[in-house]
């Protein structure tokens, strides 16, 4: 597993975040596999492990909003992944990174080893 360096922000999220389960720097794995509906978790990141870069705030769950259901809000994170973790060997540079916004229900705590 290849994990990125993350320097946690020195400021709080600018939007109400509810009670987020993860803090910046935490190691998380994106849940694997397919899911039906309006999903904002890109396929290429499913099953990949990265670190929480920051807590964005809590926002409406697009998987509910897309169907006109109220849903409620859920913590949204920016998660940072290394190119090596996402694409394997042979990337342009293994420690270049991809940051993506992922909602909390797509993330599981993972170990740094």
């Amino acid at each position, binding site marked *: 597993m290849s994990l990125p360096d993350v320097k946690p922000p020195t400021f709080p999220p600018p939007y109400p975040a509810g009670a987020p389960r993860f803090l910046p720097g935490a190691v998380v794995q994106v849940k694997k596999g397919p899911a039906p509906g309006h999903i*904002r978790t890109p396929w290429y990141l499913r099953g990949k492990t990265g670190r929480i870069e920051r807590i964005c705030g809590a926002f409406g769950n697009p998987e509910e909003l897309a169907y006109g259901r109220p849903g409620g809000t859920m913590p949204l994170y*920016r998660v940072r992944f290394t190119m090596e973790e996402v694409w394997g060997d042979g990337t342009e*540079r293994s*420690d*270049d990174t*991809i940051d993506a916004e992922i*909602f909390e229900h797509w993330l599981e705590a993972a170990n740094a080893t």
Partner: protein
Amino acid sequence: MPHDHHHSPRDFRPDNDTPLTYWQQMEIAVRELLIEKGVTTPGEITAQIDKMDARSPALGAEIVARAWTDPEYKQRLLENGSAAAEEMGAILDAVKLVVVENTESVHNVIVCTLCSCYPRNIIGLPPDWYKTRAYRSRTVKEPRKVLGEFGLDLPDSVQVRVHDSTADMRYLVLPAQPEGTEGWSAEQLAGLVTRDSMIGVAVPKPA
């Protein structure tokens, strides 16, 4: 008089003689219904289109130039992009702006792999290439090659950070101030800041 001059195929956009797509029909039907029911008017729709067309990278360039000349503003911009952009007169509506800073060792580039999310309120409508599958799929996989095709060859000492705009945030790159522009006014500096440098596929160059 004969039609004796030559048009190359590039002179014309093809006439739109093809049937309307499903979504074009849907748009027209919904628009006409909303007008018929008095929810909106053609004038309001045109005014909204004008408002969208009037947005340009100029506002983003002013924001960047202020960040270069005012360290406290830069800090506010990095902490809460939307509030700091509003200080400069931007109308953010519900846009939540995250500003990412280029440094000597980090270069940021923005993409939306899922669709075409873009900070329109700050830098106007996205260029066509930003919405292509090629840019969207390649930027997350081989960003250095993509940037090279834009004419930006990054040294090995610089790490690339790709930001995939997947949900509620919108992104603006805060480029590094070009060397040799110390002491320039914010107005002069704003003239160096291009749209592409705020997407991260270019860097500002001194005039």
